[in-house]
């Protein structure tokens, strides 16, 4: 058992930490957000040059063969910077789907493009009524003279407005919530019949609503004809990545709050000298550390091939992250007082990001229900 980072992981951490510290100060981020894409083109180039976009791919594909722990290292730093660039959509979701679902030839053709920053990806899966049920796909794919015709709509597709290609799920067969028959396509958003409406999200990122009306795609765009188990694994990896991002954001809220308590003076003394605020800060610390522990657990378990064990662990982590983040976020605002309410100050932006993370791929209660129905984490020792 060893929680230490390897030498390579340490180097990776140092470089992403430095990137965020040097280039992602709160004022810099505001500028990036005002660019047309909603993020910084120059920053995207820099992330590319650092090789981060190739993280999940083998070296022969232009990557460096990283796993969930390396992803967590990057996402933790990005959480501290509230990074806007479509790393999660392109590399964690898109890269994960490519790696797990695509044929060797498709992977061989596309992974190097992703790694070199030329191909941004997004994943359109969730629909208006599916909420957190990954099997709930109503969008249809009808075979028609060697092509597929897609009809339906995809909701809140993260960075779907700027992606060069979009993974879309559509039902090839089966009832609406059937586990079998979910097809995974990789389509060009310029395809006739595909529309996308981009918009900002609450946390300053971007997403799109995507509609598919008689959208005709080629048979070669079908990546998998029974994609649900793959999607579940990729979403589990994505949740582990979001857990790490949330921990980074929570750490920043804790740091900002602590700094504020030490400098803000009222009644002639630093407010951090008041015991009631000290105790609440300690409870924030406990919540952050418990979340950090579960984010590590998620990173280690994201690679687990037994889907039940993996899902239970990921669910447990998402519960802890959701609950810790809500506590830490609310307390960070409260302990700051009025300044915490202002859009000009950083803490509220972290609060908004972790609040959105809870709503992604299952909130704390959804995952608690799943974990509970599976019998929980602990049982009798055999």
């Amino acid at each position: 058992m060893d929680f230490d980072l390897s030498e390579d992981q340490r180097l990776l951490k140092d470089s992403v930490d430095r990137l965020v510290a040097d280039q992602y100060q709160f004022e810099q981020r505001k500028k990036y957000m005002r660019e047309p894409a909603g993020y910084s083109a120059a920053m995207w180039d820099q992330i590319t040059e650092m090789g981060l976009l190739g993280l999940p791919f083998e070296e022969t594909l232009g990557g460096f063969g990283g796993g969930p722990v390396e992803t967590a290292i990057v996402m933790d730093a990005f959480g501290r910077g509230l990074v806007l660039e479509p790393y999660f959509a392109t590399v964690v979701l898109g890269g994960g789907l490519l790696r797990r679902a695509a044929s060797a030839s498709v992977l061989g053709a596309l992974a190097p493009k992703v790694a070199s920053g030329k191909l941004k990806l997004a994943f359109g899966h969730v629909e208006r009524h599916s909420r957190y049920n990954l099997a709930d796909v109503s969008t249809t794919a009808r075979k028609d003279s060697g092509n597929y015709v897609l009809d339906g709509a995809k909701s809140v597709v993260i960075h779907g407005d700027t992606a060069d290609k979009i993974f879309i799920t559509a039902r090839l067969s089966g009832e609406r919530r059937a586990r079998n028959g979910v097809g995974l396509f990789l389509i060009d958003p310029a395809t006739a019949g595909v529309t996308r409406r981009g918009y900002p999200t609450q946390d300053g990122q971007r997403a799109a609503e995507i509609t598919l009306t008689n959208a005709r795609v080629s048979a070669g765009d079908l990546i998998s004809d029974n994609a649900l188990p793959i999607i579940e694994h990729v979403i589990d990896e994505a949740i582990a990545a979001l857990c790490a991002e949330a921990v980074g954001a929570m750490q920043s809220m804790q740091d900002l709050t602590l700094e504020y308590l030490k400098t803000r003076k009222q009644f002639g003394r630093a407010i951090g000298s008041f015991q009631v605020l000290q105790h609440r800060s300690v409870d924030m610390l406990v919540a952050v550390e418990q979340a950090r522990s579960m984010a590590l657990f998620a990173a280690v378990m994201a690679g687990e091939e037994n889907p039940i064990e993996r899902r239970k662990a990921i669910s447990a982590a998402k519960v802890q992250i959701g609950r810790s983040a809500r506590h830490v976020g609310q307390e960070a605002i409260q302990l700051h007082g009025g300044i915490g309410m202002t859009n000009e100050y950083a803490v509220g932006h972290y609060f908004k990001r972790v609040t959105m993370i809870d709503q992604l791929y299952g909130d704390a209660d959804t995952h608690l229900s799943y974990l509970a129905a599976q019998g929980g984490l602990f049982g009798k020792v055999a």
Partner: protein
Amino acid sequence: MDLNFTPEEIAFRDEARHFFRTAIPQSIRDKVAEGEGLTRDDMINAQRILNAKGWCTVNWPVEWGGKDWTSVQVYLYQDEMQQANCPTPIAFNVSMVGPVIAQFGSQEIKQRFLPATANADIFWCQGFSEPGSGSDLASLRTKAEKKGDKYIVNGQKIWTTLAQYADWIFCLVRTDPTAKAQEGISFLLIDMKTPGITVRPIITIDGGREVNEVFFDNVEVPAENLVGQENKGWDYAKFLLGNERTGIARVGASKAKIARIKELAALEFAGERPLIESSRFQEKLAAVEVELKALEMTQLRVVSDERKLAKGRQNPASSILKLKGSVIQQQLTELLMEVVGPYVMPYQRDFEGNNEPIIGPDYASEAAPMYFNYRKVSIYGGSNEIQRNIIAKAILGL
């Protein structure tokens, strides 16, 4: 980063698992599982079994029977012991006075006390708290005046756990009333049979007798029973209190309670279905399991870190172990009581010693007393509010 144990660690875990589940009598482990009080003989028997294997004083220096184990081995040892419902070695002996004597005592005092302390030939109790000195321990007033080759001790200790079983008590006493609070305190070992000592029980809200008041009225203590130097007792007490870092979370014990709660919830009914199938109940339990898993991971982080940190330095995460561990232990006693239902009501401690059959299922009678009793967990050893004060200062720098 690798959360898997090495083959050697797994072999060690399996050895520990087998040992705790076969060498310690089932009757004792059943009592621990149900939260029944152990007799003095139970505690001594269990400790001697551990000591015979050399697994009692693993935290002591090797020359006095300690083990040069890795922090992972210590973790696995504690986890398996707790999960097997094996009694922890008498804490006053093994976690408290033993390490202090081994660290600060003279060679004579080590020879005289350490082997007997390890084997529970001496049953120790702890004389720290006083009626006016709880969280503010350094304000203690029990005084020891040097007269020739003796100390004359006068005063009162309180919350003295298992003083009724104890052969000896280790006390913090004031030897210099003129010095600053922390600087006039000494660490003194006192034979409980010495004339002038009176032990009075305090019955707690669960109806049990765990704690006592101990009165000292002109008690004569040989000066050779002083540990280390006079007026340095506060340093030794701080060493004692800072010693226990990871076992304090009691993750293994909480795992055992969860397993027990699941067993019992399958026997009780909520409507037509077993309680364990109620989604409301499942979710309440799962919520605690998530917290416990997080705590276990936090503990493993601390354990992993201990190998690298200089001795005496602590990972900041270690300070949350008691805070979170205590609350989880308490939540599980609540859940256990909820599982049992109406049969938590009969109060059956007055029945001890007679042969009437117990009322209700045999697992029911201790559920409510354990719930009441476990309120202590967030109070003893520095209340959770004191823990927060410590963390705020030492870790957050507030």
